[in-house]
């Protein structure tokens, strides 16, 4: 209710899931051109319950349950966006977006420039990625770099409930196709979220923890691990800065370089595979931008390059962990390993 007296605190602690849900609701209320479309988002209330309650409140024209036809309904959302609707698509997980990738890469990303600036495609594609839940090779991928590689797309990856809100609001109001990456392991994470309208600036990274010895650069779930490791290392007298990319395209190279210029050391922590991954781009940026300020080579902690196996023993070995990050930070700073 908007009419009640403002007795609620200006900041609430809510989950990432709830932040997304509330933001979708607020934008549906604000702009009648906004509609949601995706598999199981209505009656089923979302595979991960992000859209819970929205069908009941807004009806089936604003919250559209689509058949299992990713290429079809993503492409249909593009068409609706071409005439000024603002579709917010949910793809159940990033893995299934591969079926729609032609529409996203060859069409949504190209139209504005290829048709000489005459058309805009104001749409959002929300989808979670991430491994670690034993969902096996086809359901555990981090394919963000596939989209981050494409000019014409914007790609954001919030790591906190507050950013989930502010970046989703910005994405919906943006006039370009925005890939909005969620993460299965973040949905239940809690954080402080300011009430009222919050609109992030897409394309900007954030220093989420300041430090002087080394910069960990990460995004999405990785940022939460980076913060955890930074806190542990603080107890040992190491001062770690954490750069949360928030936007993978465009990439805020200045913020990354400024951080490394200050600390002289950098480790990238990423959930995708090592070769040609997000970390490769960050390392290259640091190498080109602030090489002279580096006191040690940039290192990357990324997933082992295998189709992710189901068995827990193998999954744990393949995924980047806090322990691996902590070890590599020590190596870069040349401090003794913990357990040896």
């Amino acid at each position, binding site marked *: 209710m908007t009419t009640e007296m403002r007795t609620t605190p200006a900041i609430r602690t809510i989950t990432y899931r709830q932040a997304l849900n509330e933001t979708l609701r607020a934008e549906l209320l604000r702009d009648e051109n906004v509609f949601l479309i995706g598999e199981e988002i209505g*009656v089923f209330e979302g595979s991960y319950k992000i859209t819970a309650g929205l069908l009941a409140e807004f009806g089936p024209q604003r919250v559209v349950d689509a058949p299992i036809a990713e290429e079809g309904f993503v492409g249909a959302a593009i068409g609706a966006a071409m005439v000024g609707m603002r579709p917010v698509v949910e793809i159940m997980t990033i893995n299934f977006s591969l079926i729609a990738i032609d529409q996203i890469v060859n069409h949504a990303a190209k139209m504005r420039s290829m048709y000489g600036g005459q058309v805009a495609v104001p749409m959002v594609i929300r989808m979670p990625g991430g491994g670690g839940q*034993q969902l096996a090779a086809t359901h555990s991928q981090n394919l963000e770099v596939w989209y981050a590689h494409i000019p014409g797309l914007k790609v954001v990856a919030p790591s906190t409930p507050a950013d989930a809100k502010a970046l989703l609001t910005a994405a919906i109001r943006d006039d370009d196709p925005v890939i909005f990456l969620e993460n299965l392991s973040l949905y239940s994470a809690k954080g402080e979220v300011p009430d009222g309208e919050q609109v992030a600036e897409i394309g900007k990274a954030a220093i989420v923890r300041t430090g002087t010895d080394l910069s960990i650069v990460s995004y999405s779930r990785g940022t939460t691990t980076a913060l955890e490791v930074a806190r542990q290392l603080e107890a040992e007298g190491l001062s770690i800065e954490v750069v949360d990319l928030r936007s993978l395209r465009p990439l805020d190279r200045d913020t990354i370089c400024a951080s490394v210029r200050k600390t002289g050391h950098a480790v990238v922590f990423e959930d995708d595979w090592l070769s040609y991954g997000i970390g490769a781009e960050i390392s290259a940026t640091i190498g080109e931008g602030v090489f002279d300020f580096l006191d040690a080579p940039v290192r990357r902690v990324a997933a082992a390059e295998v189709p992710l196996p189901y068995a827990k*023993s*193998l999954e744990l070995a393949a995924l980047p962990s806090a322990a*691996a990050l902590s070890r590599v930070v020590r190596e870069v700073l040349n401090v003794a390993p913990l357990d040896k």
Partner: protein
Amino acid sequence: MATNTRPRTADSVEQAEPQAAEPREQRGEPAGQLRSYYERMSLIRAFELRSSEMYARAKIGGYCHLNLGEEATVVGLMEALQARDYLFVGYRDHGYALMRGLSPERVMAELFGKTTGVSGGRGGSMHMYDTETRLFGGYGIVGGQIPPATGVALALTYRQKPGAEAEAVMCLLGDGTTNIGAFHESLNLAGLWNLPIVFVVVNNKLGMGTTVERSSAEPELHKRGASYRIPGVRVDGDDVIAVRDAARAALDQARTLRRPVLLEVMCYRLRGHSVVDPARYRSADDTAVAQKADPVPAFRATLIAAGVLDEAAADAIDAEADARVTAAVEFAEKSPDPSPDDLFAYVYATPVANAPSALPGDPVTDAL
């Protein structure tokens, strides 16, 4: 709107009668065979109930989709499929793996993620594969199995002549899966190239929480082959014999005439989409209909009524199924976890220079 006569109600889907209206006990089936079908259905039932239990006890992880309610369909289809035929399944694949002849031990071990599992513990519930029995995979991506299944059928046309002894392909998919492009592209290819393949739509009325009527503009799914001139057949999936006979006829047509068939098998999913789905979106009425149709107790009652089994014999069969599953769980428990040393096994068939073998955080080179 133009005249649109397509039926959109649930009734229209259910109204199609099973092909054989005769009571089951009068179909001239040998008693031993009927008994064996019941044993198989009972095994699948016991296996799936135990899988659900093991999931709740965190012995099984990830996604886990059960064949509960589909036992007659699974047994009937697999009875028709010959050892020389190829089988492609979706992710609801446990029962098919069992009926293909894989031991409950190896299937359960796969669910437990053990080296002794069907896919070495690497695939899990959704990804059972066994070269020997020509189980060519469970597939976790909706529709992912349909183009490769079509491709196996294409390969068969290079290697053998049509005929009663020829090999054929059976490709299973769910009702919801008929909406994905891969289904339509593959049916067109199969129709165009005269491929020996039977596409089986296991219509359990739901894709996750979405009914057929809410997802398919032509909800009589067997008619969806019409655009590709692929004949469609619909059969009662709660009737193991009707399913077997329909599948046999379809496979025969595929082998001997090299004509694909679209077989729609009508059944029910007894529980949620996967073990973690409480299926709250389902009305009490719909749940009651599904439970009433439950093919396992129904077949048991039929066989008892026909004098094929008595209560004691049926109980003994159920107890035996349970004991086999208990043994399977014990085997899975005792089996080894895959070693992280083998993480990179099987990534490539042909060894290649510089194939990645780094663990997270390893330096990229030791050349320094």
